[in-house]
């Protein structure tokens, strides 16, 4: 047993932390879901991502042959932890963590040469087109049609919940190329330029009023055949192949730790009924319990990263990390709102909002954390069936 990081890993963490504190405005309280809400802010995000690219950090874990640093999973986890803790922009999950590895595994040399470098440099923003209006947890029920038409496919249908499509350049997606095959067969993995003719993007603002999700409609959109990744009709395997990207879920505990620190500072200055909030025994118990849960979440994530670093595939553990981390975020959000009391109602627009309205934003966003990226119910099913071997039927 050794829970320590190597001196190089510690140095790297310090370097990332120093970079972030230098490059990020000290009053940065924005959350990922609102980066793209505002044009000026999004420009800052893009510039920031490019700075990360210059440091080589965007593709930290990519193998050297694909232009990456070839860093270990633990290094990548440290990086992700620090960026999440700082609520930093530039964590390009769709490009660097999802499409990149897919291309390395299934792309032709030409496709790799064409698509990987712009991801690594931060020039191209990708988004992900899996979900559709009628498919939530049931991902394989894709209805977007891609009809073979000589040197290209013609796409008709729509994608839903497409995060940041409105500020992205391109989308990777699953489309049905063989409508007569069973549900999981007959899908193909395609890359599509969002500037293509026939594409329209409609915002789906969320309950916090932020524009993050979109519906992307495809009306006779042409996709060149060169943009087919892997074999035709085998897109399901391409999309779900067990990719070796970092999946520790370290972000959950990192973001939670930051919030808990901010709430601690609040509790130590704010008085109610003549007493500091931090002097209340039940407030103290809540802080201690949440701190404990954050530690649990963080250690579960470290273990996932470490397992990956040994070449293991921690499926069950990743589901546990996601399940526990996101439900923890909800518990912190509820506690934060309780602690703030009436002031918790104030939005970030109010000059009287404590912590610039951060807690309210986090509370409102917390409804989605246990849904997106695989609902808590799906995670529990996976843990029980795949992890513990309980029977399906």
């Amino acid at each position, binding site marked *: 047993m050794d829970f320590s990081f190597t001196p190089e890993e510690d140095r790297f963490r310090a370097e990332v932390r120093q970079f972030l504190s230098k490059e990020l405005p000290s009053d940065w309280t924005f959350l990922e879901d609102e980066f793209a809400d505002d044009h000026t802010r999004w420009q800052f995000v893009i510039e920031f991502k490019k700075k990360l690219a210059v440091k080589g950090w965007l593709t930290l874990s990519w193998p050297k042959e694909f232009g990456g640093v070839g860093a270990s999973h633990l290094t990548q986890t440290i990086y992700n932890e620090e960026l999440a803790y700082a609520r930093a922009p530039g964590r390009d999950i769709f490009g660097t963590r999802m499409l990149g590895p897919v291309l390395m595994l299934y792309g032709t040399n030409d496709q790799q040469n064409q698509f990987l470098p712009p991801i690594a440099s931060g020039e191209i923003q990708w988004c992900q087109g899996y979900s559709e209006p009628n498919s939530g947890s049931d991902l394989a029920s894709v209805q977007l049609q891609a009809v073979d038409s000589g040197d290209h496919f013609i796409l008709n249908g729509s994608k839903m919940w497409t995060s940041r499509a409105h500020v992205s350049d391109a989308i990777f997606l699953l489309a049905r190329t063989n409508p007569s095959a069973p549900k999981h067969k007959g899908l193909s993995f395609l890359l599509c330029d969002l500037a293509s003719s026939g594409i329209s993007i409609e915002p789906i603002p969320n309950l916090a009023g932020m524009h993050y999700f979109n519906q992307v409609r495809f009306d006779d959109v042409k996709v060149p055949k060169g943009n087919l990744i892997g074999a035709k009709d085998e897109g399901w395997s391409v999309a779900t192949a067990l990719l070796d990207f970092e999946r520790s879920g370290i972000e959950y505990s990192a973001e939670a730790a930051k919030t808990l620190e901010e709430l601690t500072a609040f509790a130590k200055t704010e008085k109610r009924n*003549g007493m500091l909030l931090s002097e209340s025994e039940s407030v103290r118990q809540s802080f201690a319990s949440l701190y404990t849960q954050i530690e649990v979440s963080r250690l579960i994530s470290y273990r996932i990263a470490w397992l990956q670093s040994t070449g293991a595939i921690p499926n069950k553990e990743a589901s546990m990390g996601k399940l526990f981390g996101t439900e923890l975020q909800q518990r912190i959000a509820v506690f934060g709102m309780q602690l703030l009391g009436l002031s918790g109602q104030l939005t970030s627009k109010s000059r009287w909002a404590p912590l610039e309205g951060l807690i309210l934003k986090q509370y409102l966003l917390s409804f989605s954390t246990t*849904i997106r990226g695989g609902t808590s119910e799906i995670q529990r099913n996976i843990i029980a069936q795949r992890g513990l071997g309980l029977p399906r039927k």
Partner: protein
Amino acid sequence: MYLDLTESQQMLRAAAKEFLASACPLQVVREFEEDPETHRSRLWDHLVELGWTGLVIPEQYGGLGGSFSDLVVLLEETGRALLPGSFFSNTVLFSLPLLAFSSPGQNDHLLEQLVSGEVKGTLAISEPSGSYHFSDVETRVSPSENGFMLTGTKMFVTDALISDYFLLAAVDSSSKDNPLGMFLVNSDAPGMEITGLETFTNDGQARIKLDSVCIPASHSLTQVSSGEAVLSKTLEWASVAKCAEMLGCAQAILELVIAYTKQREQFGRPIGTFQAIQHYCANMATDLEGARIVTYRAAWKISTGTTSEMESSVAKSWVSSIASRLVYLAHQSFGAIGFTQDHDLQLFTRRLKAGEIMFGDEFFHNSKIADFLGL
């Protein structure tokens, strides 16, 4: 024992349902959030016409003389419909205490004006500390020529921007026995500065700065009872009334969930067939069953004029405690679609959460309950 609505309450409910369905569909709720002025006066005129402004005010002032239980029946429906506007603050936070604590003749005219809808009032207690503890009231009152002078800051005052009067808590630090006073303050009195607050329900809360605001001696509401008594009763009524609104709101959420999970299919079957979803719904329904009955019980206690503080705190503690878990279970049942601004669910989610916070949350009322229990 009779644990159902009376016949007249059932009629009141049916009439309210009908009116709200036509005058206040969710589209109006949305538009009101964006721009209250489009619908405000139309909705208000309707309420006056229906007699709602005088529901709890005796017939001698032109009202209907309804009981607190009648009010709860109505609030359950306005909560279910998310009725925007100042009905709650005007009736619960202002009319009720004015009625109960005015000395004979003190506010007869004002009560008539409340019924006719000519004037509106609301309550101003909380301050920047965001607390309902009496000890956190720092707004100062001192005697002045012919009356009193008030200085301080009030926060989270519901409907302050459209109210004509505030029932306002202030402290006279020179008085040892009864430092807390309750005063009627005109919204246009010199020295008043009212600023709207951006809240997540856009429900028109405001900050009020009082800079040496002078009011006549007749505007003290502590001639019959102490300021503490006025404030504590007012807060108690407000918390039970808020429970009623919340349970209407929560009932609407449960109905949305049931309707959705019955028809939404995933993996080839309605998601309402999944045991996880069924158990979420069962939990919500059970929580709500309790919420309804504790709220009705508290309302009945208030209506009968018996000691009711404990029962009221029990109601607000319980209804507040179920709100957080109910909204999470609802969203979890809906999946992504419930998280969008376009979906109606979020309208209810935000208001239910706000209700949890108002007039004391679970922890605030648990402290009171512990006191009652002699702990």
